[in-house]
């Protein structure tokens, strides 16, 4: 003996709900849902990266990288996050940095020269020592008699010496450097995925 059950649908609420859910889970829409949170997440991450380890005045590199970040949602459900800042890739992957037009790299070795170029400092001259070649600038001081600038006068004191020493060592010349990679430049894939899943779950719960 068999039993059968007849089910008659008097009101179909399931199909519209399923259709709505399917529409909300389309790849293109999910990309729209995730784009803004992922872009903001990456911008905050870049902004939070530490400045130079010497504690010299910041050049604002990571803020500039954060500002240059934009996300694009594509119809195939993919999201493109772009960081439009020269130097970010170099810091992420590392690698050699070699002079291209000049004969040597000029590496800043002073908070005065950090973030600047040699041509911004008038009167720079080459000084070769046993430890290497440097671009130095004659120090300046203030004449107590006339109040004008005089060169090569020592006024003493650690803080003043940086600016008013007989010679200010500003750049060290180098034939090239090999920069180590820094994977912390970008969040991990797991972190990106977590942000994306949170935004999708929030959206589907609406």
């Amino acid at each position, binding site marked *: 003996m068999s039993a059968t059950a007849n089910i008659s649908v008097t009101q179909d609420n399931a199909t519209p709900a399923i259709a709505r859910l399917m529409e909300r889970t389309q790849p293109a829409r999910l990309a729209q*849902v995730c784009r*803004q949170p992922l872009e*903001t997440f990456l*911008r905050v991450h870049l902004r939070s990266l530490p400045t130079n380890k010497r504690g010299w005045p910041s050049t604002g590199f990571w803020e500039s990288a*954060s500002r240059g970040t*934009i996300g694009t949602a594509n119809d195939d459900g993919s999201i493109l996050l772009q960081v439009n800042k020269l130097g970010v890739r170099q810091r992420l992957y590392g690698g050699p940095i070699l002079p291209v037009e000049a004969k040597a790299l000029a590496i800043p070795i002073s908070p005065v020269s950090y973030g600047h170029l040699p041509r*911004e400092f008038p009167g720079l001259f080459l000084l070769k020592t046993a430890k290497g070649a440097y671009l130095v600038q004659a120090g300046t001081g203030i004449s107590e008699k006339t109040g004008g600038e005089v060169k090569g006068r020592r006024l003493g004191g650690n803080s003043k010496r940086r600016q008013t020493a007989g010679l200010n060592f500003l750049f060290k010349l180098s034939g090239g450097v090999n920069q180590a990679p820094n994977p912390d430049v970008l969040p991990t894939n797991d972190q990106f995925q977590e942000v994306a899943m949170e935004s999708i779950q*929030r*959206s589907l719960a*609406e």
Partner: protein
Amino acid sequence: MTLAEAILELKKRGLPVTPRTEQALRDGIAKYGDQVSQDSLDQVLKKILDGVKSIAHPTEEVRSPESIAEVGESPATVRGDAIRTLLNDFSSPEGIAQSMNLDFKIRIATEVVQGAGRFLMGQTDVDEYPAWELYRLYARKVPRLWAGDEGTDDKSLMSAFAGRWYAAAQAAGDTDAARILQDTGRMIALKDSDIWNELGSMFDDSLGNPYPPFAFNSGMDVDGVPRAECIELGLLDADEKPEPAKFNIADLISFAT
């Protein structure tokens, strides 16, 4: 007294008389003849000392072209000096950059264009994120008064009224934006609210754009607010369809120069 005696007298009075100075003195005193009275000597000395003082303590004087010509300095001379100054400033790329503050302007222009790009992208997901929240993304030593104090007590709100958000909300007629700040301490408004235009245009340091950076060196930025949160905050009804911002693409980018 003779000229020689006059010069000796000036030296005694402490005026360092170099050969060039002596020649200038001769030219000046020659107007009074070979013999120099004490009064004449005093006049010459005073004129020299006044000239020295004007160099040591210069004061600005705006002169008309006619007055310049009257004292013997022709407009051509003035122009020549100005041209020489410009050539000196523009004699090198560094001079040009420093004279025109190009680094600063290029940085601002770059930030504005980047902001414009995110503004346009933000109009494509209005259904998902109908509003923006203004918040501080980059720290500043001296932040502008965007929302006043963070608190919602009377004193804080009074200072908040002086904040830019309230001023812009009032100008835009966006009562929801003002209410949300008062109730939650957050600066949130729909993307099509005119408050974003006001934030970028009504202050002296505004750059003229409806998106961040609203002002130069600003550390503020915006983040999308999900639809559900907008409904919860009373910005939208449950079945209301949000609208993108109204803008003219040709006028989208301004550097307020």
